[in-house]
């Protein structure tokens, strides 16, 4: 055991002295997190703040639905809207000249036509500098008109069924102005979802973990090329302890780098991954999976250069497939395969943890990562050791 820890301590000292581990395991992923956050959204927050908007309107309609439409716009909860009323002929010019976001002209028989089931045209004028606010306003008007048209459909259906005109009018008004029987509300998925920033931080941490652990196990190849492996193998330590020392170094570096990336990422980008204990378990499991994977690489390649290339390809494939840059949508067999990706399991586990999940809730991702570690470790014993023949 003493020999094992002597080798671990020496390797850690070499890695720290080499400094490349800091560059590739901390500086590069943190920089990438920053760049991706800038690219995929505003730096400070996930939500978009809408600016105040101006609507230039004319409503010749004295009825209930015309008033309801303008009142709905006036009281939108997502942004502040000011409605300016002008003559119908001035709506278009005024909208463009004043820089308003939207102009609306409601015809005089708007309510009557809707309730009678007759076609009616609403004129919309978009401002010159079409902004996100304009799009929101158009969407809202569009939605309201669809709801009103439901009144038209109801009235038409009632008329064909032979209902009296008085009843038809009441039905149409009720349908057009009432609340829908079905509604959609935003909720949280059962597995928990990370915010955009949380996904990027977790994804980059998972992706670069695959590179970081390589500094340990793949060090065997560097020892072989540097001639020191022969000296280690001639020392009174077992072959197993040499390999175990490298694995431990990769694991320790992986755990430390991932913990630092999640910690610093949380602080810099204002995200939380939930219970530190759960996060710690997830980090330990994904580091074990990544370390085991490098054993296979170490046996299949002959040189450190080949190892770096293989490690980069594996890291990028597993990282991207795991959602390190953006979520991957798949179904069927492929989805099942993707679920076995330790990076995906890690991100999913962090999502559950961020949503308040405990150890029991992250059991599935943990089992996937530890299972991956076990299978990879076993597979590494079965693949031929090409490097030793070099």
């Amino acid at each position, binding site marked *: 055991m003493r020999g094992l820890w002597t080798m671990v301590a020496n390797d850690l000292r070499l890695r720290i002295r080499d400094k490349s581990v800091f560059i590739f395991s901390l500086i590069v992923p943190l920089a990438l997190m920053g760049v991706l956050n800038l690219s995929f959204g505003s730096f400070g927050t996930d939500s978009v703040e809408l600016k105040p908007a101006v609507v230039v309107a004319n409503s010749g309609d004295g009825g209930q639905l015309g008033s309801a439409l303008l009142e709905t716009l006036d009281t939108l909860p997502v942004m502040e809207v000011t409605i300016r009323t002008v003559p119908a002929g001035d709506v278009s010019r005024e909208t463009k000249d004043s820089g308003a976001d939207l102009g609306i002209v409601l015809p005089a028989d708007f309510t009557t036509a809707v309730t009678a089931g007759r076609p009616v045209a609403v004129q919309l004028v978009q401002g010159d500098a079409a902004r996100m606010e304009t799009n929101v306003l158009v969407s809202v008007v569009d939605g309201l008109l669809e709801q009103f048209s439901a009144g038209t459909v109801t009235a038409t259906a009632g008329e064909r069924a032979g209902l009296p005109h008085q009843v038809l009018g009441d039905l149409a008004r009720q349908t057009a102005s009432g609340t829908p029987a079905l509604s959609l509300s935003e909720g949280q998925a059962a597995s928990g979802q990370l915010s955009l920033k949380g996904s990027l931080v977790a994804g980059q941490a998972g992706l670069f973990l695959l590179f970081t652990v390589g500094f340990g196990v793949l060090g065997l190849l560097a020892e072989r090329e540097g*001639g020191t492996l022969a000296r280690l193998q001639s020392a009174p330590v077992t*072959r197993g302890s040499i390999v175990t020392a490298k694995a431990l170094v990769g694991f320790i570096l992986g755990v430390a780098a991932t913990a630092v990336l999640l910690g610093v990422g949380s602080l810099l980008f204002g995200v939380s991954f939930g219970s530190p204990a759960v996060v710690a378990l997830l980090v330990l499991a994904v580091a074990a999976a990544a370390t085991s994977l490098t054993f296979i690489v170490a046996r299949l390649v002959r040189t450190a250069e080949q190892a770096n290339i293989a490690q980069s390809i594996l890291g990028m494939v597993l990282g991207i497939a795991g959602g390190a840059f953006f979520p991957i949508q798949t179904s069927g067999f492929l989805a099942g395969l993707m679920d076995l990706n330790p990076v995906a399991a890690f991100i999913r586990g962090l999502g559950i943890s961020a949503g308040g999940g405990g150890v029991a809730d992250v059991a599935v991702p943990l089992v996937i990562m530890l299972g991956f570690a076990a299978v990879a470790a076993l597979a590494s014993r079965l693949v031929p050791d090409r490097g030793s023949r070099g």
Partner: protein
Amino acid sequence: MTTGLQIQRAEVLGAEGLVKKYGNRTVVEDVSFQIRSGETYGLLGPNGAGKTTIISMVAGLIPADAGSIRIAGEVMAPSSIRARRHFGLVPQELAIYPDLTAKENLRFFGKLQGMGGQELKLRTAEVLELIGLADRAGEQTKKFSGGMKRRLNIGIGLLHRPTLLILDEPTVGVDPQSRNSILESVEVLATEGMAVLYTTHYMEEAERLCNRIAIIDVGRIQAEGTRNELVELTGGVDRIDLRGSGDVASASAALRLLPGVQKVDAGSSGIILTVHNGPGLLAPIVERAGSAGMALTAVEIVRPDLESVFLHLTGKALRD
């Protein structure tokens, strides 16, 4: 009677019937030798003769396909820990960490050998002094010259005072000054009672350092003994090298007929003769070569040495 002590004094390394094959190719075949305490044993042979493979089996780096190895009474196998405590290995390739200082390299490998505390501290200082790196102990070895690295490479091997020191071509690529320093260090270690297994393809090194020498070629020991015993194998013949131009072929044919000439090897620029009593035959050889049309530019009588032995045993030069 203490058998253990007797074994240690009588035999530090015993290799019996070593065989190593890679696929259908046999690279080491039935190699056996023993080394006693205080003895320097040389494996002399050209590159590719199998010396490093033998060393690798002795050091437990690769398993032998057949045969056995005992070091200080312990059976050596790839999994043997106890046997590994008794030897120090100096690989042919530099085996040091360039990012560590000389002192850190020594301390790391010392700890792997089970050393620690004051013992390791004192021994590290002692070895640094021995290899002439005491004043550079705190420098990263990547700043060292090739010779300094070679000396440190040896220092690591002998740090834990092994019973057996295995040196695999330790002077390859070393400047003459460092080479001499390395050879002197080995001589000192041998006088202190350390057994040394030394591989080289430099005949001069084997002659200078080794009490006994095994001549290796194509994976086999061709002959083994002291320097004088090996030279005796040539039958006490001398070698005469004739250099020159002209009709070398006719000269070769003429010299073959001269009484006392055992063997004639003609090359493009000269002739190598194996003869009895070289000095006595020199005059007729020069006269006959000249008569046959060869214009001599240099003549040299070489008394029997390990090079001659190798040539005698294998029919080729040591550096071929």
